[in-house]
């Protein structure tokens, strides 16, 4: 068994607990002025997703059962010092920051300027105040994919910034789904820039999940997150994104790994019956999917160990990326990987850090 403290650990899914108060000064006008003046704080609207983006009804604090030592997520707002403290706490050497607030962007369908304004502000804020490659703090640039031109602006902005190493597409709420040709320009540019596309399951309001009307976090976190990722995996694979952009690295984040074999089996069965509907594919869709990278969190270690072994086998340990999801309530520390009995130490080191170095060119 290896000790994470002695080895490179790259965390591919750290949620930077940004607040609107932090980001607003960096937003373009009119938001920069309009939003802080809106009185969101005084009216009891909390500093979380609902202040700017649609509300999420799930209570992430789990009724007071969770206490946070290193971050006041979600209301406090992290600073660079909090990130460094958390990295030290978890023995993480490098981390890829994903905006916490952006997870709600899928809930926006009409006023897409909000997403663009937020992302532009977020990028400037992170560059100025948080990201620091020398300290191992990297960022993934959110794509305001409702608007391709805005997405291109973002890519132009971050292209020469060493601190950004890829993009994030929030999977919940993307409509049409992300295999649609509408998004080709984003993929084309990311391929050119050597930027992996990280598809991250989303925390839009519960009514924006694939299925509307869940009542509690336990439901959305089990199914909503999963459905959001699965719907995009199917679209991306069947519409041939990996054939169109063969050098694009595709990463799916934050739904664990046990759903992958089931989805692969199912999509392959469909493909055998309806191959002509996916004419760009040169092999079965499941063969593309098992070439994607997958973040491990939240790893379903309580599942039958033999099932987890099959999952790792199917995806390949070279395609698994350790992710903590810290400081979210269900974060995984590196020991989740080092404690897995079916892995050898090389596999553990690969999943913990080396695969990410390769994928993100760190």
């Amino acid at each position, binding site marked *: 068994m290896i000790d994470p403290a002695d080895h490179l650990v790259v965390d591919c899914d750290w949620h930077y607990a940004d607040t609107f108060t932090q980001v607003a000064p960096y937003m373009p006008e009119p938001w920069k002025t309009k939003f802080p003046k809106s009185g969101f704080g005084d009216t009891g609207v909390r500093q979380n997703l609902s202040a700017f983006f649609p509300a999420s009804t799930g209570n992430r604090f789990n009724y007071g059962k969770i206490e946070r030592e290193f971050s006041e997520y979600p209301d406090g707002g992290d600073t660079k010092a909090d990130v460094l403290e958390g990295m030290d706490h978890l023995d993480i050497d490098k981390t890829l920051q994903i905006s916490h607030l952006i997870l709600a962007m899928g809930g926006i369908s009409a006023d897409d300027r909000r997403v663009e304004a937020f992302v532009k502000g977020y990028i400037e804020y992170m560059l100025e105040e948080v990201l620091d490659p020398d300290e191992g703090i990297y960022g993934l640039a959110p794509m305001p994919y409702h608007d391709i031109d805005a997405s291109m602006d973002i890519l132009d902005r971050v292209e020469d910034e060493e601190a950004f190493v890829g993009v994030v597409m929030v999977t919940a709420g993307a409509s049409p789904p992300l295999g649609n*040709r*509408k998004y*080709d*320009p984003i*993929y*084309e540019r990311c391929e050119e820039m050597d930027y992996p596309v990280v598809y991250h399951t989303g925390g839009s309001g519960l009514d924006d999940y694939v299925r509307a009307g869940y009542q509690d976090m336990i439901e959305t976190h089990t199914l909503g997150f999963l459905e959001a990722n699965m719907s995009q995996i199917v679209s991306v694979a069947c*519409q*041939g994104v990996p*054939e*169109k952009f063969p050098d694009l690295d595709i990463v799916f984040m934050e739904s664990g790994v046990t759903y992958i074999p089931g989805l692969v089996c199912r999509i*392959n069965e469909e*493909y*055998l*019956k*309806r*191959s*002509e509907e996916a*004419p*760009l*594919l040169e*092999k*079965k869709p499941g063969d593309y999917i098992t070439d994607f990278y997958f973040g491990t969190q939240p790893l379903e270690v309580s599942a039958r160990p033999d099932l987890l072994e099959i999952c790792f086998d199917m995806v390949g340990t070279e395609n698994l990326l350790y992710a903590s999801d810290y400081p979210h309530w269900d974060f995984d520390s590196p020991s989740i990987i080092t404690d897995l009995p079916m892995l050898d130490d090389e596999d553990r080191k690969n999943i913990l850090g080396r695969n990410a170095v390769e994928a993100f060119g760190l």
Partner: protein
Amino acid sequence: MSAENRVEVGPAAEFEDGDAELVQVGRVEVGVIKANGEFHALRNQCPHDGGPVCKGEVEPRLVGEWGGSGERVEQHYDDDQQIISCPWHGWSFDVETGEHIGDDRYAIPKYDVVVEDGTVYVKGE
């Protein structure tokens, strides 16, 4: 093809393109298919679930071409590739090779066909 182990199928002139004629060859049923003017013989047993694959439709394969970023994938029928689709669940096979169009690990056994003096024959096992 020796005359002994071949099975007579019928006059070649009676086949239209896309027609398939079933014959018993030893213990198995074989479909003799005419596609693009050529004869092919495949076992009439689908590798999926044993369906009568040779009773299915013969048609050109639908292929897609991608013009570039953001472009629609243009689809058209490629007359050079003829496929036959099993009527039970739609698995489709290349008529010439017997291979599944989506996964060549699945293939229908092929048989030799010959046309002699206007008559079609399949070679037995």
